């Protein structure tokens, strides 16, 4: 118990950093991913091409390399960001590719007749996407998006290697100072992640049941 009381402030701050990083990166990924998915199904070929290029690039690049690019590459072109913001942007941009893919499969699962009927009553492409296609797509993609979110929460640990003191970064630090308590340290960090992921999984399940559409 001595270990926990001694290190509580560090663990708490690290937990809050992981939580903040997850929420901000998740928001960025959701917004950017939705825009990318809309671009991929748009009738305008250059938009489709650009979105495909983005998704394929980020999906096939290791997250660590994305961090390197954002945190060390961008300053080369005089664009300096703080480590925390760099981590949010890296994780968010990387995850956006997966969100876009999940949404695209959801969009494809919405029957073509739905969008056709929307266009037939005079909705524009954007309106039919907003009113008809995306709301139905979001419902079918709640489980896959949930998986993307949970994977992303764990992926925020890459930020430990780029000077952000989130949960995973406390591991080596605490281990050095408390060699006898390795198992406790691991337990504390794992519990930290589970405090985010377990309620998320529960919430996702609730949302899934709530939004299911009768077909």
């Amino acid at each position, binding site marked *: 118990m001595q270990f926990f009381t001694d290190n509580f402030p560090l663990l708490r701050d690290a937990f809050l950093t992981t939580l903040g990083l997850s929420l901000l990166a998740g928001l960025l990924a959701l917004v950017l991913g939705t825009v990318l998915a809309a671009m991929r199904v748009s009738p305008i070929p250059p938009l489709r091409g650009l979105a495909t290029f983005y998704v394929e690039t980020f999906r096939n690049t290791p997250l660590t390399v994305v961090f390197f690019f954002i945190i060390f590459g961008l300053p080369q072109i005089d664009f300096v960001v703080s480590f925390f913001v760099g981590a949010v942007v890296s994780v968010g941009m990387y995850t956006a590719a997966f969100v876009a893919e999940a949404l695209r499969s959801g969009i494809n699962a919405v*029957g073509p007749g739905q969008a056709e*009927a929307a266009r*037939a*009553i*005079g909705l*524009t492409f954007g*309106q039919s996407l907003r009113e008809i296609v995306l709301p139905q797509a979001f*419902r079918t993609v709640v489980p896959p998006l949930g998986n993307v979110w949970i994977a992303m929460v764990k992926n925020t640990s890459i930020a430990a290697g780029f000077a952000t003191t989130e949960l995973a970064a406390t591991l080596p630090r605490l281990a050095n100072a408390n060699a006898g308590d390795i198992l406790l340290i691991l337990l504390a960090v794992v519990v930290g992640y589970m405090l985010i992921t377990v309620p998320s999984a529960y919430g996702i399940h609730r949302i899934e049941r709530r939004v299911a*559409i009768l077909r």
Partner: protein
Amino acid sequence: MTERPTGEPLVRLSGVNKWYGELHVLQDIDLSIDRGEVVVVIGPSGSGKSTLCRTINRLEAIESGEITIDGQRLPEEGKELARLRADVGMVFQSFNLFAHKTILENVTLGPIKVRKQSKADAEKRARELLDRVGVGHQADKVPAQLSGGQQQRVAIARALAMDPKVMLFDEPTSALDPEMINEVLDVMTSLARDGMTMVVVTHEMGFARRAANRVVFMDAGRIVESAVPETFFTAPSSERAKDFLSKILNH
């Protein structure tokens, strides 16, 4: 609305051609439809009836020729096209009601988002229309809770809510159980009586005789024959129409 000079058709297709790759689905189609006219399109499977219907609101683009509605050429894309589509009602074989919205929302969406009506006005009108097609008491259900015949009547109400100049029907009763066909045809017949301009792809000969001003017979991407129903059914002039009629009337 100002009346246009008499004689100008509401819908005019001239020299329309369309290909799907190698397949020449619409070949030199000329067709004019007057205000208040009800045109039934029949023909063998694959003859291009659905494609013809879908080019009229540009759900399918054409390669050559011209289509005008109320004297206005169909715009290529974007907002202009959306505005024009709002004036052309369409009823699909598979209903295509918006699965995540209630029956009432299905009918009010277009008037609110496209015609910019207030929610209250749109709902009042939607309830009138739903009553008219006989599904007023189902307004708060979702589409999956309705029978096929009820869904198709909602789809008709949804199209009518836009106050369209013309209504397109692509085999509106083909996906229905036999006992539900008449409830939909009755709604369509009363629309025809009320003077709605209609293009109806159907094999329901009873409806054609009762409600149509003209039957257009298509085969292999061409309009082969165009005649008043009585003449078409009793004395078709082309061999292909005779052949087709003998097949569908004898089974």
